């Protein structure tokens, strides 16, 4: 049985800039996904929420410079909990040079400031790892 793609969206750690995360959340909802906006959360809480919500996708938003440390931490904790099939995406202000390390750590894609939301929607449909969600 197919169900809506479930996306958890979090502001990562202490980052205060919520505009992008909220706008993207609403637009993913417009695209037919179920979006839970968690507000500011640290990696441990994000994992707990991902388990509870049985999320297909975790979106991490940060413009606060903590991407390099906290992004990989989220992926690592997910894998430790046996949830390596959750698609982890990142968005925000992130230097290009940091992207290879983030991808190597298991962040599926990093979306910069001028991303069109359709690109994110298409990426999710093309890369969803969990079989249970509808594409």
């Amino acid at each position, binding site marked *: 049985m197919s169900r809506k793609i479930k996306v958890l969206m979090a502001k990562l750690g202490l980052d205060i800039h919520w505009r992008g995360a909220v706008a993207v959340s609403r637009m993913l909802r417009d695209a037919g996904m179920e979006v839970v906006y968690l507000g500011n959360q640290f990696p441990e809480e994000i994992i707990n929420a991902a388990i509870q919500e049985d999320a297909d996708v975790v979106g991490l938003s940060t413009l606060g410079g903590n991407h390099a440390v906290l992004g990989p931490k989220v992926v690592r904790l997910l894998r430790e909990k046996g949830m390596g099939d959750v698609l982890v995406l990142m968005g925000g202000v992130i*230097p290009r040079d940091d992207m290879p390390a983030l991808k190597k750590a298991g962040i599926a894609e990093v979306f910069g400031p001028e991303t069109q939301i359709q690109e994110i929607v298409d990426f999710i449909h093309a890369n969803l790892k969990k079989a249970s969600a509808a594409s």
Partner: protein
Amino acid sequence: MTDEYYTESGIPVKLLYAPEDIAGYDYEKEIGFPGKPPFVRGVYPNMYRGRLFTVRQLAGFGAPEDCNERIKFLLRHGATGVNIVFDLPTVRGYDSDSPEAEGNVGACGVAIDSLEDMERLFQDVPIDQVSASVVTHLPSTTVVLMAMYMVMAENRGISFDKLSGTNQNDFIMETTVGSGPEILPPQASFRLQCDAIEFATKNLPRWNPVSYNGYNLREAGTNAVQEVAVAIANAIATAEELIRRGLPVDSFARRMSFFWDLCNDFFEEIAKCRASRKVFHEVMKERFHAQDERSCHMRFHVQTAGITLTAVEPFNNVARSAIQGLAAIFGGAQSLHIDSYDEAYSAPTEQAALISLRTQQILQVETNVVNTVDPLAGSYFVEYLTMEMARRIRDYVAEIEKRGGLVACVESGWLHREISNYAYQQQKAIESGERKIVGVNYLKADHAHSGEIEVFRYPDTEERQKAKLRALRERRDGKRLAEAMISLRTGCKTNENIMPHVMEAVRANATLGEIEKVFREEFGLWQFPLA
């Protein structure tokens, strides 16, 4: 193709403006000469001939000793003021060694944990001569960093009347514009905001203890009208509270300052600046019956719009920022920060920061635009737009008051929804191409990637700050600290001004995080409406 045109905030724009568009306005009454009510043309009669706007480039990254180097670099190259931004753990009230700070220490701003850090940050900077903008954002952060700044002055033997500078100190930043994992209730944040202002009114004659931050509200998602209206509504709420505490309006109003975001709609931004002065004058004069004309002076800092910077073709941002800076001058700003081209990636490199500084200097000495006061006055369009902006700002202030005032509008989440709706609509307009961004969704270049620019790397800071904290905690006088913390806790429970308690805690080498923890425990936490 439609032939309807609007400003960014939605004011219809005609093909042509003519005398009849401003026929109803009496020059002396509605516009007035510079330095004369209602101050549309500027708060000083001679404006930039008397004093140029302060060149105040933002700096903040790494540990205090790293950032101290950047401050001195900017001053050596002709900056006339200091402008410090702090990292997120500092802003949100956590020490560098707290688990919440992981990954954020020294990023996007400088890390300050203690009085000693503040002293390192301003080492060799003459704080009795240079005016310092200390961008504390939140009231809960302000009361600590402001106390550190004052105790630093005490230790240097500098009297408080020599200190000149500005704090941001805006409860809207704490509760609405910025989200966070642990947020103080709006009423508590507003109390701390007013405590800092009250304390400065009595002790710091040259200090601006508040800079109502329209800027970050705009960046979060509002138009120019809302930006100014919310800031003025906050000034109204502050004035009411301080008057309730027994201060006369003329004792504090002249130390209120404002902070605007100048975006791309050139004439609307200029009209916004002019209109904001007019509305503030009305409020202070008519509602609060200020007698001192300086109480009715709206003085403001401008930063060019970070939200308009693109990561694609980043050098285009030099043009955007220069044009926004020009609008700030036509708007009569008192000080200016021009964003750097690389800020869609990181904090600016030294080279990018220098271009911003040079842009300011080019505007000041090469373009001649500062040589006459308010040169756009009398333009049928600009004057019409100024009056229309003023009307819409008043209407939005009235809307806020109808809903119980600004604190109530935050508590109910109404303001958060206003911002969120605007941000969503803007993003849709960009997606549809209705709102054009050169190089991004319009005339996208073939190789529309980021260009190869050098991006600033934050120095590794976390371990250095942790080591300093360990040493400090071992060294300090535990008894004095414990006493100061008890008095701080008591101060939170009463209505007395918190500042003397915080200063004593700072003198006892309490860390920023320790003080903020007391605030969180005593005031409780508040659920941010969007989460």
